[in-house]
């Protein structure tokens, strides 16, 4: 565990960041617990280890701001306020799922809190965030849009096309690249000449930061600056959030169990657990107590147990619903 640095944000924000990260961690761990039963029939792409990015960025957002996410999007949705009940129900393919059982784990959506969906095509949702930002600019106001994506997306042409247009039109969008150094199991340096994704902002004169995203405070501050610029009409920012995925690309196992990467690498990164890091800091600063932390863990556990129970009790969709929602037929 690295040396705890002084807490440089208000205590209430720090406590919320802690709670959001714990919610995401426990939400994902619950999936690991139940997945073996094989009644959650959806390919899950877990974000354990990467929680600080969702929490740190979304803490700066309002309900009326938009986010776009990816196949690895549970954490972003939760951090933006999506309902764990509706997410789990979706993963179980139930009618009360956030997408009525049509999307599964890879396509969560929660328009009521600004989650405009997720693409399971690498880079696919990036331009949607830019389009949402274009709409914001046309409609007026100081809302912002955030695109979450992985380092794999920067291999795609659509990433570069999206950055160019956002910069060209000075759009209120924040590009948040979660660089976990792997696309499925292909290491970043097998796919690119260097791993400095942040450099891609330079030709577009776009503000950019490379952020150690094991430290949620650093993510929070970088996102705070980016969101402030976007709200002030100063255009987009690229954040390269360096992180590590503890689990495999898909499913509840870790990659070393499948021979995809060295176990020692994971163990090194686990030494820098982002949830643990903030909580240790909060304890050291006297902002929370061990008892309060334990109670918070139990409270989240209860909420998620309730959500799981809700999801399992929900009815499945009627088979006839397979033909519904192909086309919009009016409000």
């Amino acid at each position, binding site marked *: 565990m690295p040396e705890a640095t002084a807490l440089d944000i208000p205590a209430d924000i720090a406590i919320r960041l802690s709670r959001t990260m714990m919610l995401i961690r426990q939400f994902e761990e619950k999936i690991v617990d139940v997945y073996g039963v094989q009644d959650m029939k959806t390919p899950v792409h877990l974000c354990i280890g990467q929680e600080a990015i969702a929490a740190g960025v979304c803490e700066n957002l309002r309900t009326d701001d*938009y986010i*776009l996410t990816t196949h690895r999007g549970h954490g972003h949705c939760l951090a933006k306020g999506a309902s764990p009940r509706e997410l789990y129900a979706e993963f179980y393919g139930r009618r009360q*799922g*956030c*997408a*009525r*059982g*049509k*999307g599964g784990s890879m*396509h969560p*959506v929660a*328009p009521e809190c600004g989650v*405009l*969906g997720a*693409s399971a*095509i690498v880079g*696919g*949702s*990036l*331009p*949607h*965030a*830019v*389009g*949402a*930002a*274009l*709409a*914001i600019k*046309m*409609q007026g106001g100081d809302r912002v*849009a955030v695109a979450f994506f992985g380092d794999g997306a920067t291999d795609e*042409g*659509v990433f570069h*096309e*999206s950055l*160019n*247009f956002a910069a*060209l039109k000075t759009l209120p969008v924040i590009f948040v690249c979660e660089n976990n150094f792997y696309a499925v199991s292909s290491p970043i340096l097998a796919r690119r000449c260097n791993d400095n994704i942040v450099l891609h902002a330079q030709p577009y004169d776009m503000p950019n930061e490379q952020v150690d995203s094991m430290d949620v405070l650093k993510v929070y501050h970088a996102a705070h600056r980016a969101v402030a610029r976007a709200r002030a009409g100063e255009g987009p920012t690229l954040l390269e959030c360096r992180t590590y995925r503890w689990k495999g690309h898909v499913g509840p196992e870790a990659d070393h169990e499948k021979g995809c990467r060295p176990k020692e690498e994971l163990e090194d990164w686990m030494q820098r657990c982002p949830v643990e890091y903030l909580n240790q800091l909060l304890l050291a600063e006297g902002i929370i107590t061990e008892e309060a932390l334990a109670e918070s863990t139990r409270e989240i556990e209860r909420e998620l147990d309730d959500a799981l129970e809700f999801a399992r009790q929900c009815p499945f969709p009627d088979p006839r619903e397979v033909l*519904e*929602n*192909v*086309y*919009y*037929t*009016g409000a």
Partner: protein
Amino acid sequence: MPWTKVYLNVEEMADTLQKEGLRGISYHEAILEAQAQAMESDDRVFIMGEGVDDPGGIFGTTLGLAERFGKDRVMDIPVAENAMTGIAIGAATVGMKPVFVHMRNDFLPMCMDQLVNHAAKLCYMTGGRLHVPLVVRAIIGRGWGSAAQHAQAFHALFMHIPGLKVVMPSTPYDAKGLFLAALDDGNPVMFIEHRWTFNAVGYVPEEMYRVPLGEGIIRREGEDVTIVALSQQVYEAMKAAAILEADGISVEVVDPRTLKPLDEELILSSVSKTRRLVIADVAHRTGSVGAEIVCRIAETSADILVAPIRRVCFPDTPIPASPVLEEAFYPGADDIVEAVREIVKGS
């Protein structure tokens, strides 16, 4: 009815319409007017595309719109078709109504990920919580050596994708009415125009009106053969019908106008009457819209035909450049006439 009529030349139209005191304009003017009225009446509508504000104005279809509505609403864009499609989708999901213009259909393969994986899927994979009101205008080129990458048409590809709608207006009246209906539809609509219809003229009311998606139309009534003609082939079919009339063959010309949804009932009722079918398309043979139409007839009414079907369409080759090769490549009224004679003679 003036709004169903296909005029084969300006003089014919002028004579007919003047007598009735009706306004006749060209196809490209009809599209220009539809877009202008849509933007005038709805702040959510905006136009984007490469060169939409240039002096040519996309063959006249966007002429003067940038000056009138500003370059933020009539937006020239980077040559980045895929991301720009995604950007249109993103804007559409939060309340805007983008119109994305492509000077050639050939640029659409650059957009396939966003059209097929995203625009077509968002409504379904979010259980209807998002939808994508997007009109993609795409123009089919032809002639002057346009060749393999500037004259293609992909309506059959798009027709295959659940979640997309496909519209192919042939007349000025339908161009305006279907455009406004497409814009109201709330779904991604592939609005496919043919460069060779742009100077076609016809009756177009000045007010805004809609032609419902999914309703085909009989362009000419007949008894012996049905020609289902798409887009520019409607004009070829009308010429062919006039030639065949002199032979004593009575031809019915059906213009589906919309391919998805397809007016299966209209086609079926026409073919039930004539019992002979020729399909005239502006694309390649294999996996074509014609194949789908024939299959639907076979599924429900296999016994109604008394003669083989003929497809008048592009051969299964890329499109050539030389005028001599173009002439050999493109089928027209003569080929339709020949196809009709073959199947009438044989039955």
